[in-house]
């Protein structure tokens, strides 16, 4: 799993049916210290994350489909948690707003 920060939303009306009624969030990848690690991903929101929050990204298809209860959906990246705090792996408290 990866740490990321929600930086926006992606709006789409013409999409694969598996994405109907799902929220797509644009996330910047972070390192454990909370600094941008380079790159961004679009993820399906499974926890109700909001803009600016540090989140846990799951980037594995089988788990994503299991969490979303969507067998056969072409979904690979899902937000599975909202991070309160990260300790270690860098400069300590990573959730700097």
């Amino acid at each position: 799993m990866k740490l990321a920060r929600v930086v926006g939303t992606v709006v789409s009306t013409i999409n694969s049916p598996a994405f109907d009624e799902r929220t797509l969030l644009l996330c910047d990848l972070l390192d454990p210290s909370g600094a941008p690690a380079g790159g961004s991903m679009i993820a399906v929101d499974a926890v109700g994350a909001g803009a600016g929050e540090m989140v846990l990204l799951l980037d594995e298809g089988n788990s994503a489909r299991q969490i979303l209860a969507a067998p056969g959906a072409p979904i690979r990246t899902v937000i599975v948690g909202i991070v309160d705090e990260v300790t270690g792996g860098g400069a300590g408290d990573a959730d700097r707003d």
Partner: protein
Amino acid sequence: MQLGRVVGTVVATVKVPGLTGVKLLVVQPLDRALRPVGGQVVAADAVHMAGPGELVYVVAAREAAQAMPDPFVPVDHAIVGIVDAVRTLAGDDPAAPRPSPPPAPGEPAGGPPASGPTPLARRGTRGRAPS
């Protein structure tokens, strides 16, 4: 999933049977400011409506095949949505073709509100006391 821009089409007459009828497009992956990042990829069009110039999002790896009618087609990138708007925290929409200027002060607000991007409300950190 990744943002991308359709920059071309691929025509292949001889291909494995699973790819018959699958539209193949050349996609340039983009970062969130819609700048090109990385090399171009050939993606199957799973929404059947993408065309050159369009902003799309692409799913990669095994999940790409899941987007197709036959989930065992040999594709590793698939276009699974056409992007209408990208709304970022700062309120800018890099996907907007031409951002409309804000109305001048005192100008009567005529017509329906602009369908432009609206900034997201920034939410605080949950469950933490202010430090």
